[in-house]
């Protein structure tokens, strides 16, 4: 397994670090200018994280789409198979009814 950090790993760490330690960072900020910069940094890290996360999901979008299509095809085949079996049973029941009907007609004619 490749342990090299991905772009998502790096940006995730930056976002989590600033969010989870935000109060501590504000405690250490010397003035209002530093507070304002901290807020901007937080917004930037959050936006970058969400953007990178979205891109990471995009990489698996094609396989999700294909997987769903394959599963639907399998479900459709199963439905058709069940329909086939039900048709066989229905035909047998029909044959039985037809033979019975012929018997009744023959009895009436006789």
């Amino acid at each position, binding site marked *: 397994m490749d342990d090299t950090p991905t772009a998502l790993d790096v940006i995730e760490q930056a976002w989590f670090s600033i969010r989870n330690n935000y109060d501590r960072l*504000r405690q250490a900020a010397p003035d209002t200018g530093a507070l304002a910069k901290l807020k901007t940094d937080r917004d930037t890290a959050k936006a970058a994280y969400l953007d990178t996360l979205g891109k990471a999901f995009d990489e698996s979008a094609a396989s999700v789409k294909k997987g769903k299509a394959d599963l639907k095809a399998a479900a459709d085949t199963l439905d058709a198979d069940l329909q086939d079996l039900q048709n066989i*049973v229905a035909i047998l029941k029909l044959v039985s009814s037809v033979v019975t009907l012929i*018997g009744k007609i023959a009895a009436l004619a006789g």
Partner: protein
Amino acid sequence: MDTRSRSGAATRNLSGVLIVAVGLLAGGCASTKLGAAGDLGDAGSRSSAKLIAAAAGVEDGFARAIDQDALLQPLQDSTVPPPPGVCSFVGRLTPVATPLPAAGPPSAAIARIEQALAARRMLAVALGKTYAGWTALARYDASGQVSAGVGGVFDAANALRRTEGLGPIPSAVGSIAGAAAGGLAGHAQVAKLKAASVQIRTALAGYREALVKGQGATVSAMRNTIGEQYALTIALWQRGYLSARPLVDSVGETSGLGVPIDDKATMTAADEGLCSAVRAYLETRRNSQEARVARDYQTQIDTVDALIAAHKDFEKDAPLDLDMVAALVDQLNTFATGLSGKK
């Protein structure tokens, strides 16, 4: 009757006996196989339900994290905490004179992630539908219905023969023929299931690929949910908006102890010692949850692997090991409920 016609009749009789024998034999094998197919369908349906819950848990968790951040950010920005070295902010926060306007959430990125998470949930739903179809085919009593149908044909034929003054076909012939036809129908049903199994196994391999490719992103989204919950809880706790009473109560409950009835303590972060202890507890819990999510996600992949293996066994008529699937599904249960935020 000449020798040739006697020989022809004997061949026809032998063929009939062989067809009946094959039908009866196939019926016996098919019923065992159909039972296994039904069990595999149940295992697949249970797995799908848990995979859907897991995917929905990530989806709900992400939405909750976005909502929570909308509360956390203004809460932290409106005041400046006391200097470092203290845990409790109760009564010690300095309001910010002119708060900076809050930046709106990056809605395009959020919508894109929500769409991706919904697609992953729908993938699990598709798996559930496939197993519903599999189970319906496996549990359909084609053999019984065909046997009854053939029996009905013999009864009807006998009714017709009576009108023609002919003797009835012996009932044993009808029931044997019915069982044989039922056996052949069961055999055909198994053949359909085996072909479907190959198709499902291929689709499961695709499902697995989607899980693996989305592993980094999904695990990150889960860690984000855990981290957001932690950050908001700590922020509210240190400001005195939360009480530790339920936590203390639950600890007392498990050890048979209780909070004194006349205790008027509010158990907030105003108590510096309690503030630090609860903070350490929440940090530990967050770290343990973060460490667990990757493992839990791997359990989803392992569950799909176990289903693929079960389908392979089904196709080659080997005994199915569904205990492994059941054990993994049990683990998925704790995973799914952990992140959804729903009780």
